[in-house]
């Protein structure tokens, strides 16, 4: 098995207030209307410095944006991975997330998982779920931050949680039935993996499970010398275990063992030992910082984002579906946010152009990737008339640091915070969906308050 060399999590910015959904305190992390499992996978992956050198991409989700079409290819394109990099989907459940992890550990590559968990209004899933993504990079260049010591998997067929393929919300049997089955599976998996490793226990235990009875009893089910953690945002589907692992990697010291237990239709276990490289290779923003704060979203607006209620749209036509061949020709721009820079005069074209607008030179262009750069707002507006899945549309003209300008939407917008000169980064989002075709493109995202 290869070593773990990098990790990053992504939590969306929006929060449903606890009082709106029956939580006594706190809130729930929810993806914005323009986010899906694919976009959140891109966001998580992009924060790992070496992600763009991955030799394989394994994408796990229980809420794929497409069926019959690989979703990992959009992530592959957004990250600018080479054509000979395998990119595949592991769709289905939290178990798929662990399978992606196992595959990446075996072959090297990126295991990225993301989910948008939807519950019926008033349901436990609405209260206790959370949306997010997590990425773990194995193998390749760079020192390992953790080594895989042992793995174990137990499989069991029983009915705890299920969802019709045509439904956005799922169902659960009486919780205690699943709790009992899972408790036995977890104990057995722990015994087996520790036995293989020849260890009496682990420093940190990560235990995730779609059954909330297990989550409540986690600390009594398995002993961890230093900590026992569960999902930091509530049940988050395919990324549940990876997200919880990220939160432990944020705090674990060098030379400590981490036991990852993902109990979904069985129980999977992976035992890791951190190295001295970990403290210097932690993700830029720990899970706790990503979890704190956020932007409130009204419950009704949220329900409209998930298609559970339909709000009155502006009196404007819905967009046409994006053209397959046109999108195919512009993949480096549409998915990768790469423009062209004139070799003769340096003028940057976003989107790329063949004839330079600066000096007229033809076909003398180099590729210039912009996705990882920052920009400054030249001017901005709020469009109350434009069609959007969640009006109004906030837009900005953005001057890219180092050259180039383009006009785009502003994601997670707080219009009152935008002014001429505001600094932004770029984030991969779903602009709209028409004819069942998702129109993916990049938006600007205002720097957080931490950046001034």
């Amino acid at each position, binding site marked *: 098995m290869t070593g773990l060399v990098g990790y990053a999590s992504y939590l969306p910015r929006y929060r449903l207030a606890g009082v709106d959904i029956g939580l006594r305190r706190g809130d729930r992390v929810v993806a914005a209307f323009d986010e899906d499992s694919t976009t959140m996978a891109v966001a998580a992956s992009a924060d790992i410095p070496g992600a763009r050198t991955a030799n394989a991409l394994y994408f796990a989700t229980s809420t794929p944006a497409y069926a019959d079409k690989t979703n990992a290819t959009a992530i592959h394109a957004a990250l600018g991975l080479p054509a000979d990099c395998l990119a595949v989907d592991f769709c289905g459940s939290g178990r798929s997330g662990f399978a992606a992890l196992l595959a990446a550990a075996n072959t090297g590559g990126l295991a990225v998982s993301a989910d948008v968990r939807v519950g019926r209004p008033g349901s436990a899933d609405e209260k206790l779920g959370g949306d997010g993504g997590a990425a773990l990079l194995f193998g390749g260049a760079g020192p390992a931050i953790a080594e895989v010591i042992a793995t174990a998997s137990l499989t069991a067929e029983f009915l705890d949680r299920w969802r019709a393929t045509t439904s956005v919300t799922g169902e659960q049997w009486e919780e205690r039935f699943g709790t009992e089955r899972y408790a036995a599976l977890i104990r057995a998996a722990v015994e087996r993996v520790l036995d293989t490793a020849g260890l009496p226990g682990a420093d940190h235990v990560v235990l995730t499970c779609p059954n909330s009875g297990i989550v409540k009893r986690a600390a009594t089910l398995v002993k961890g010398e230093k900590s026992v953690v569960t999902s930091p945002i509530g049940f988050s589907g395919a990324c549940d275990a990876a997200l919880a692992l990220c939160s432990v990697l944020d705090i674990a010291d060098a030379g400590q063992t981490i036991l990852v237990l993902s109990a979904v239709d069985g129980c999977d276990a992976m035992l890791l030992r951190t190295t001295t490289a970990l403290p210097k290779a932690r993700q830029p923003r720990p899970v706790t910082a990503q979890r704190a704060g956020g932007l409130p979203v009204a419950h009704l607006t949220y329900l409209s984002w998930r298609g559970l209620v339909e709000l009155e749209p502006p009196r404007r036509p819905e967009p046409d579906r994006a*053209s397959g061949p046109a999108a195919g020709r512009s993949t480096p721009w549409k998915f990768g946010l790469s423009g062209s820079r004139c070799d003769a005069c340096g003028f940057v074209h976003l989107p790329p152009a063949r004839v330079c*607008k600066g000096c007229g030179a033809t076909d003398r262009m180099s590729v210039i990737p912009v996705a990882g750069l920052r920009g400054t707002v030249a001017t901005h507006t709020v*469009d109350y008339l434009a069609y*959007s899945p969640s009006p109004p549309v906030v837009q900005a003209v953005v001057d890219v640091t180092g050259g180039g300008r383009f006009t785009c939407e502003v994601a997670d917008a707080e219009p009152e915070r935008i002014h001429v000169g505001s600094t932004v980064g770029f984030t991969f989002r779903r602009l709209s969906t028409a004819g069942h075709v998702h129109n993916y493109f990049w938006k600007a995202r205002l720097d957080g308050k931490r950046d001034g």
Partner: protein
Amino acid sequence: MASKGIAGKVAVVAMGCSRFGERWDSSADDLLVEAVTECMTSVPKLDRDDIDAYWLGTLSSGMSGLTLSRPLGIGDKPVTRVENMCASGSEAFRNACYAVASGAYDVAMAVGVEKLKDSGFSGLLRQDPPGDGTAAELSMTAPAAFSLLDPAYCAKYGVHAEQMRDAMTHVAWKNHANGAHNPKAQFRSPVAKETIDKAPKVAGRLGVFDCSGVSDGAACAIIVPAEHARDYAETPMYVRALSLVAGSGRGAMDPGYDYTSFPEVVRSARDAYQQAGIDDPRTAFSLAEVHDCFTPTEIVLMEDLGFTDPGQSWKDVLAGDFDADGRLPINPDGGLKSFGHPVGASGLRMLYEAWLQFRGEAGQRQLPDPHTALTHNLGGRPGSCVSFVSVVGREAGR
């Protein structure tokens, strides 16, 4: 290589203009018949068979010359449909003028029409070819695109947001006050400044009254060689300059562009002034009909057309310089604000006001002794647009 123009070579001898508005009872065909009938009635010495060729400007109300030839029952004559976004009507006029100036035809007609109110949507609809879904135009409406001028202008010239708001309000107030005197306008009531200020927002700081209306309409003109003009009309309108510029779209990609000007307008105005031999645009014109699609557009256009200095327009607007009784009346007919903007018709509607003014037929709007007028159309948006400028006069030359 040079833009030589056709100053003094052709003249307009008849015009027609439909009533503009939400013409629920009229099709594009009806609007065309309305404008053309008025036009033909006004020139008894010409009948339909005397017109040798037609140019029709429309953005979306039909394709090909058949859009005009079928409703008018024109048989076996050349009819060309042209489209240049919001400058489509002006483009029809420009091509018809060139056809007559070239000697190819003795009599040509330019027609513009747009039927917008059958769509059921607010604002203009785009008809883009299939694309990759990333174009900013797809998710940004026209009011939003032009609202970008406001914060950029304020930031560059240190104009306080409230001062800019007052200037935008003045533009809307002025054009509605002018349109109140125009029986063919969509909106024929003055609007109080307070109402303009408090209107619901459409985009950025633009409220409903900062935006031109959406209406249906048609207008047309008959063009003949200048030397024959007086055979048909006692007071012809002479064409002194026609300029069209299509930008490269550089501004939308160039951080050097600051969203406080339309370089395409500056270049087309310079070209037109050179063609017409105009040295000082501040004093050359009796009136100007400009593309006031949104109130900040008119403010910026005053600078780009050379009617005032950069950064000065908002002050001149507030001082009343461009009011009907100011030093240079802008949009005395009420502009796009009062007429709405049936895209293909607007350019010819602007020329229609100059035509009426020169002939002393502008009623309550009549200006004292008007001799020279400018019309201006803008298609597209800041950073990427086409601009048209014409100079027309009561006399063939200066």
